[in-house]
């Protein structure tokens, strides 16, 4: 007689349009220029990082400002796989995820000892330590960094097929491959987070966010939940890092562990778009990219503007741009709300 559903009309629209978007995005390199493909690669990887950070902070309450640790270690692990083990770069990407996962264990062990805001700086310290340690890794260029060897970049799995398919030069084909991988990653991460929110774990996350004591008293293992979220986020961040530096083919500790690129920008995307929603980071990354393009010629004014916009958004619209939209018309493109249907039930949401 009673049924549970998460179905909404907006959700149905998403379910239909998402595959169309994905197919269109897959086919895009056939018509788009190399510059567009590179821009899209940038957007997709930033979106991936933003979704992951949003999972951590927006859903898990874990405000990390040390995500660059996992980007960096993921990228370096991929380089190590290629340079030291002679793996194909594409196959070395999972190594990045694995390395980040391994690093996440001691990171969580230390950072979880710090309460609240100090957790944030704790993760930052770990990121710095990782950066300094990696800079000692002479086989990978130490403090100055290194590049992927020519023979590795020229033999990346799948580039030959892309070259013949689109009639591209090698470097452009590599960009297309990276773009496709980024597309796969962002779909997997966004889809994975959406799936998580619709699973039991999603209820637990929401419960813990609302009230830790009450969550424990209904049987939620809050400690394990934190660990799970942190480890998942670290592994996915590591994969993204490996992919980003596969595309650039050059790495240095400064670039791979840059707090501005991999954490500050990501935080601004989430905050401006709307924290605690899947739609927020998507909207945020578009605003971010638009700002970046518009202010590209103004050097550091651009980052300053971004920082100030984030402050203003936090002060006046703490739920971000998507929050403004959703509060107006209750639109949810990724509905996870479980509704009970059956006799005697009135509206609600």
């Amino acid at each position: 007689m009673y049924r549970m559903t998460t179905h909404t009309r907006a959700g149905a629209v998403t379910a239909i349009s998402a595959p169309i978007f994905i197919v269109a995005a897959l086919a895009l390199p056939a018509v788009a220029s190399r510059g567009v493909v590179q821009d899209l690669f940038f957007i997709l990887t930033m979106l991936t990082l933003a979704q992951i950070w949003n999972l951590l902070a927006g859903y898990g309450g874990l405000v990390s400002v040390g995500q660059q640790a996992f980007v960096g270690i993921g990228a370096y692990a991929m380089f190590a796989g290629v340079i030291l083990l002679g793996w194909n770069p594409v196959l070395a990407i999972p190594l990045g995820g694995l390395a980040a996962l391994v690093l996440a264990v001691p990171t969580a062990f230390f950072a979880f000892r710090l309460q609240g805001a100090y957790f944030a700086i704790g993760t930052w310290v770990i990121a710095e330590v990782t950066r300094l340690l990696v800079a000692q890794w002479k086989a990978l260029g130490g403090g100055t960094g290194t590049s992927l060897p020519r023979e590795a970049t020229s033999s990346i799995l799948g580039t030959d097929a892309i070259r013949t398919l689109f009639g591209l030069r090698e470097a452009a084909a590599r960009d297309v491959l990276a773009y496709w991988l980024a597309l796969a990653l962002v779909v997997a991460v966004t889809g994975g987070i959406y799936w998580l929110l619709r699973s039991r774990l999603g209820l637990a996350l929401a419960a813990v966010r609302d009230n830790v004591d009450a969550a424990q008293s209904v049987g939620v293992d809050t400690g394990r939940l934190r660990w799970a979220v942190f480890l998942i986020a670290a592994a996915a961040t590591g994969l993204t890092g490996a992919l980003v530096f596969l595309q650039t083919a050059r790495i240095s500790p400064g670039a791979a562990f840059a707090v501005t690129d991999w954490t500050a920008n990501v935080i601004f995307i989430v905050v401006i778009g709307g924290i605690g929603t899947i739609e927020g980071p998507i909207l945020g990354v578009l605003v971010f990219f638009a700002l970046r393009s518009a202010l590209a010629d103004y050097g550091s004014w651009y980052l300053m503007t971004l920082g100030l916009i984030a402050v203003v958004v936090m002060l006046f619209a703490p739920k971000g741009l998507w929050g403004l939209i959703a509060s107006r018309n209750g639109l949810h493109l990724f509905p996870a709300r479980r509704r009970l249907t059956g006799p005697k039930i009135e509206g609600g949401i």
Partner: protein
Amino acid sequence: MIWLDILVQGILLGGLYALFAAGLSLVFGIMRLVNLAHGDLIILAAYLVLMGVTLLGLSPWIAALVAVPVMFALGWLLQAAVLNRVLGKDILPPLLVTFGLSVALQNGLLEVFSADSRRIPVGALEGASLDLGLVTVGIMPLMTFASAIVMIIGLNGLFYHTALGRAFRATSDDAVTAGLMGIEPKRIFAIATGIAMVVVTLAALYLGMRANFDPSIGPARLIYAFEAVIIGGLGSLWGTLAGGIIIGVAQTFGAALNPEWQILAGHIAFLAVMLLKPRGLFPRAVD
């Protein structure tokens, strides 16, 4: 004898880190706010002092004296206009706001002062040193350390022997009840942040006189400050000095082994303390 020298240098360096940390500790102690822009505010103050020296031709000491009220007002305004609005049970808003401020400030400084390294000129004092028999110490590090001690004594005096200090501690314990005593918590917070900025100016003065600085080095100062505070145990200024000394000594020993290990050694010392004493060396009895 070289090791003794390194130890002394490290201890004196700890004084500088205690200066970095005291403002952070003060603000956290009173309003449970972690200001991620703290390091960048130090750099801002350093540029203010530098401007006083280069544009107005003042001596660094006078320039710092001029910068003090400016920084106090800035801290007061920052707290009253921005941070008071986001203080609350949820730690996310203040963290994100101060993080946004940090990035904005850093890039604003970069735009105004460029990425060039600068230094506050102090003339003859810069290289001067004092021969203590066993070791020779620089006058500047010695003054830094002495200033840190004077500052801690001063802050403790303010905290424990004045009505304002009483109001600080009462508000820190229980802001609602402090309100019932006629104390406006938001006003107290604004004054506290103002005072923290005065300490920041002192830190900036020594930072700028002892070494080169540029707009990008704020976050690293924040991290040193944070480590000193956590090692010391929240809420104890003497503990913060001890924390600063531990990091300073670790850094000088690390640097003696290999110049590349200086910063790393400081961080490792921090992590080691965290492992052994998660609540710091001198935790407050009441939390």
